[in-house]
């Protein structure tokens, strides 16, 4: 059996950063397993600018951002198995993988990092009624056809969902000569970054219909048209508000789901709110020695945060291999207070960190607000924000001395001022 100190599953930005960080900490037997024929993950199809502002302090395209990490890998002895799919991981950290080159392999890791990314929600998941013609794509699939294979998927487009991929594709399709008729969002606010709303919709005069949804798709061979209706506060279509669009394509940008089949199979504790594993401050899952980072834990909008989080996972995996299990004295569980849909991490071991970085998302758009961290009835920290939105991930730092004061539970909530 092949033995490694660390096996990283997934060679997207998360897996790459994690492997490099573990290498920097001194691990010398590291393997990255990637099912695609190249490293880089979803970044390879994101040929637009806007990656790396935080991490590299410059604007890169997706492939450029990934390229930097792939370049850094060259100076290490980290092994990479491309075109290799992990089928299963066991609780003993055996990794079962298949490939054309090496057949069926069972690999053993002293530690494992899960970095499998996420997949897109589809039409079936949101039950759009109507015909089932060709021309209904998830935005990411269309992006792949366009950017990686060089094919146009349609000429007259309606986009459902205002997630970032949909917004990016609105601009991309427009530049390719297609007409984007509308971007339709069921919520009263956009799910994407504000900068993308401005740069991808407003700059091209593409209307954004908030509190609207597609209620019918028509077409025998190819899509011929859609009906869009306004929705009420409970997201039910309002009769009489129907608008018809003649289009040949519907792009769906209705959310991403972390890809956790392997995690579930290994019976690692999951958080139903993130659809990812429950993790500690160092990105360790409930199964000792198995860590998770990037979109497989929770959906990120900025790759820079993926990188930061993944380096933490990589360092922690190295520490696990070198020093053994972390000390979990004084374990703190994070709870979601008012307006907060999830936090990552969900658990903090104060003995294990200097500053605990906590990511979370809010469930509504707010103006000037305060993020409050409570231990029972006592407020132990607060953070001011000029603006909060579900489409933008929030980040706070909880210093060690604060954590030491906290009880066994901390609640993160928001209050609009």
């Amino acid at each position: 059996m092949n033995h490694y100190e660390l096996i990283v599953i997934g060679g997207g930005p998360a897996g790459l950063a994690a492997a490099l960080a573990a290498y920097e900490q001194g691990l010398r037997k590291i393997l990255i397993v990637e099912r695609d024929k190249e490293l880089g993950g979803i970044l390879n199809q994101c040929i637009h600018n806007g990656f790396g502002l935080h991490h590299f302090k410059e604007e890169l395209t997706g492939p450029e951002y990934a390229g930097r990490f792939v370049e850094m890998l060259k100076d290490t002895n980290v092994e990479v198995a491309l075109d290799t799919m992990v089928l299963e991981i066991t609780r003993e950290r055996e990794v079962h993988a298949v490939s054309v080159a090496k057949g069926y392999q069972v690999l053993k890791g002293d530690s494992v990092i899960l970095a499998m990314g996420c997949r897109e929600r589809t039409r079936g998941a949101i039950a759009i009624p109507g015909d089932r013609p060709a021309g209904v794509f998830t935005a990411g699939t269309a992006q792949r056809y366009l950017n990686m294979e060089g094919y146009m998927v349609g000429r007259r487009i309606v986009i459902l969902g205002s997630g970032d991929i949909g917004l990016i594709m609105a601009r991309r399709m427009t530049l390719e000569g297609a007409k984007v008729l509308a971007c339709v969002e069921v919520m009263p606010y956009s799910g994407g970054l504000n900068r993308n709303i401005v740069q991808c919709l407003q700059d091209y005069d593409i209307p954004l219909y908030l509190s609207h949804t597609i209620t019918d798709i028509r077409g025998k061979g190819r899509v011929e048209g859609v009906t869009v209706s306004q929705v009420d506060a409970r997201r039910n279509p309002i009769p009489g508000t129907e608008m018809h669009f003649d289009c040949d394509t519907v792009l769906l940008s209705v959310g991403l789901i972390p890809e956790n089949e392997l995690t579930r199979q290994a019976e690692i504790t999951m958080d139903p709110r993130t659809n990812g594993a429950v993790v500690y401050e160092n990105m360790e899952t409930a199964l000792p020695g198995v860590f998770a980072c990037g979109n497989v834990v929770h959906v990120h909008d900025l790759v820079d945060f993926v990188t930061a989080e993944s380096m933490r996972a990589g360092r922690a995996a190295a520490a696990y291999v070198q020093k053994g299990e972390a000390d979990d004295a004084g374990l703190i569980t994070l709870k979601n207070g008012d307006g907060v849909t999830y936090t990552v991490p969900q658990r903090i071991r104060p003995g294990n960190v200097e500053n605990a970085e906590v990511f979370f998302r809010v469930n509504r758009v707010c103006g000037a607000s305060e993020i409050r961290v409570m231990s029972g009835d006592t407020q132990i920290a607060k953070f001011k924000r000029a603006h909060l939105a579900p489409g933008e991930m929030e980040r706070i730092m909880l210093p060690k001395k604060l954590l030491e004061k906290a009880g066994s539970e901390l609640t993160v909530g928001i209050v609009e001022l």
Partner: protein
Amino acid sequence: MFDVAIIGCGVVGAATAFMLSQRECSVVVLEKENDVATGATRANSAIIHAGYDPEPGTKMARLNVRGVELAQKLCKELDVPYIQNGSLVLAFDETDDKTVEKLYHRGVENGVPGLEIISGDEARKREPNLSKQVTSALWAPSAGIINPWEYALAMIETAVRNGVELRRECAVTGLNKTDAGWSIETTKGTVEAKYVVNAAGVHSEEIHNMAAEPAFKIIPNRGEYYLMDKSDGGRANSVLFQCPSAAGKGVLISPTVGGNLIVGPSADNAEDGDCVGTTAAGLASVREKAMKTMPDLTYRGAIRNFAGMRANSDQADFFVQVSAPGFVDLACIKSPGLSAAPAIAEEAVVLLEGEGLALPAKAECITTRRRIIFNELTQEEKAKVIAGNPLYGRVICRCETITEGEIVHSLHCPVPPVSIDGVKRRAGAGLGRCQGGFCGPRVAEIIARELGIPMVDMLKDTAGTNILIGETKQKNK
């Protein structure tokens, strides 16, 4: 000149071709679409009904019960996913209790084996997610679940290997009686055959009327469904029907052979028998009715909706008979048509013989089929399969773990697919929770490579379902 021309290649046409392929005769199957099993056969509840439903004495009753026997045998021989997991018809009040008793007696009369009436508590013991309102249930151990299109595919593939000719994109537009038999006009020219079998599903009335005086009327009826993720597949162990009542037939909840959960169908008459779209109202009615069986069922795990078109008619029974000299109708095949299909085919053979066609058994023919389903193999078997053909080491569909080996194999089978959905129906790629979002482009590439179809001509499914409209500006340069 063929001995027999079969019109339509759904499960009924495929079964008939399969049965005839074991006899000494020449057979052509004419199918209007670019693939087989794209009608009712691909969009239904996928249940092999035990046979307590049809009125005793009808063809439907006899062929249903016989069909179950044959399905058990054929699925084993032809490697078709089939699980005999039994069914429960659930009663929710005293009227239903009486219906359950009536169905029990009807079933006994029809010769359905092993029927039993059980209490609500016993039903809940077997099905923990069942509603507390269930008062009693009819248990039918011979009911099962099947992959319906694979069933049809297995039979037509084997028929083709035995020498049957399949012509696709060949719609029948007219029938003329000749001295020797029939001259069949199609969109691909004229076909001559001594005998004609009408297995055109929802279009069987049109075909009948080309050969004989009108005798029945098809009333297309749409059934809509939810298909749920595999994580929901365990919510039911058996097929859970609701008691038919004044309010209608109710909906069923059942696991599928793929491990998903299926919920439906609705029932609405439809103008256009080819229009298998879903509707907000239909889907809502499915959700509402299913709640009665499983109050806690949520649709968070939904991965797909679809609708199928029943060939309902003004006939109470299947219309299986000789309607003109040398012209056999296998028409009005509504539910339990899938269950009865091979028995209907046996009946067709008898009817053809009755019309004077000699059908001696072939001395040698193929009646079995084997496939490699990578995901179902043990670790050792997987290693061995990849060693034999490395393409089995490349997973293309990550949700269902379908390998390139399986996809390439399907593209070179006796009835090869010509579209992404065609590959889906054969190899299973794209059936899972991401519905081909991930593997679609990759499958398209493999089809292009293996069959020499240019990417820009790639079809999602039947003719006209092109997925791409051309190359991008950059690629053009």
